[in-house]
């Protein structure tokens, strides 16, 4: 960061850029969560005649940007489908933080999540870089969805001892919990 940018960032005139990676199985709600933050950060435009495009399964990944507090987020919204998970590792190097989205209603696949999570965390690039992780226990609006405590137990999150992590129950359809999670991550990213 150059002197002037650093100076203006301190004053809050220029937002500091941070890069985050959003991971999780397909259908967990990653794109819906990002859409919420994009909507919240953009200046309300005149009502457009066409409604926003519907959210569809991501192909490969999608690059998004939004502002939150005094940070400018660049987000790699990865596809969670099995055949695309191989792509995730190429983005570890340039990321400042991880967002991991769980479909808390999908108990059948918690074992798959667990496996994927640990394979991500044990990757060399992330072993060297103790970036923070926020977990969204998403779809809390669905009846019978797991609580954050149950997700901790199902995934063995207490084994993560070398970096800061936090889990928040959320619903991407009604927005609950989303700000709490991002606020925590923003606090972590500002510290550096």
């Amino acid at each position: 960061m150059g002197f002037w940018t650093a100076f203006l960032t301190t004053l809050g005139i220029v937002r500091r850029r941070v890069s985050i990676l959003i991971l999780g199985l397909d259908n967990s709600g990653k794109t819906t969560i990002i859409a919420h933050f994009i909507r919240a950060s953009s200046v309300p435009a005149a009502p457009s005649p066409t409604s926003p495009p519907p959210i569809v399964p991501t192909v490969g990944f999608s690059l998004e940007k939004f502002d939150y507090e005094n940070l400018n987020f660049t987000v790699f919204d990865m596809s969670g489908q099995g055949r695309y998970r191989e792509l995730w590792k190429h983005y570890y190097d340039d990321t400042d933080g991880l967002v991991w989205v769980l479909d808390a209603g999908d108990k059948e696949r918690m074992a798959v999540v667990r496996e994927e999570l640990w394979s991500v965390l044990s990757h060399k690039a992330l072993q060297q870089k103790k970036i923070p992780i926020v977990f969204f226990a998403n779809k809390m609006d669905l009846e019978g969805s797991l609580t954050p405590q149950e997700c901790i137990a199902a995934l063995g999150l207490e084994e993560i001892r070398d970096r800061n992590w936090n889990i928040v129950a959320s619903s991407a359809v009604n927005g609950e919990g989303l700000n709490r999670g991002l606020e925590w991550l923003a606090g972590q990213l500002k510290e550096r």
Partner: protein
Amino acid sequence: MYTLITGLYKQWTQKEEFYVIILGLDNAGKTTLLERIKSIYLGVAGLPPEKIAPTVGLNIGKVEINNTRLNFWDLGGQRELHSIWEKYYSECHAIVFVVDATDKERIEEVKETFETVITNDTVEGVPVLMLANKQDVPSALKVHEIKEIFNPIALRLGARDSKVLPVSALKGDGVQEAVDWLFVRLQRNRTNRPPIFRN
């Protein structure tokens, strides 16, 4: 010869590490304490107190004293999270138990929780530091009052090092004394719980 030299080299470059878990009920001030420790020992600003939310997860603080590293693990204090605490017991070298000294209504709950922690076999002999937090509030229970309340269960502490100290995590009063106490006890207990060596 080579092994001797690399052995010596390792001794010079390796750092001793200790792990300290910070426990206590929700709202006791654990995360505020961790941020205060970080700001005192690392000189970084840390999270402003009003930005600290209840913990459901883990916050880490690494502090270096005399070439020894203390790793603090700050855990969530909500009731549903207590079952997670014991997962850290076998790896911890000391326990800091934070008490909200202004919350007299919950002192019985604190007592029960504290008793459950100290009587767990996995932490036998591990030094325990109880912090009577929020001493900046005039009505807060003083150390001697806390001691009186906890006296009936003091026996259950066993043969370990233990202490009650007054702090204000918010203002920082007493925090350095607390860390100093820990540092000495961690060293003293090192045959029981040897440090981890890292490069």
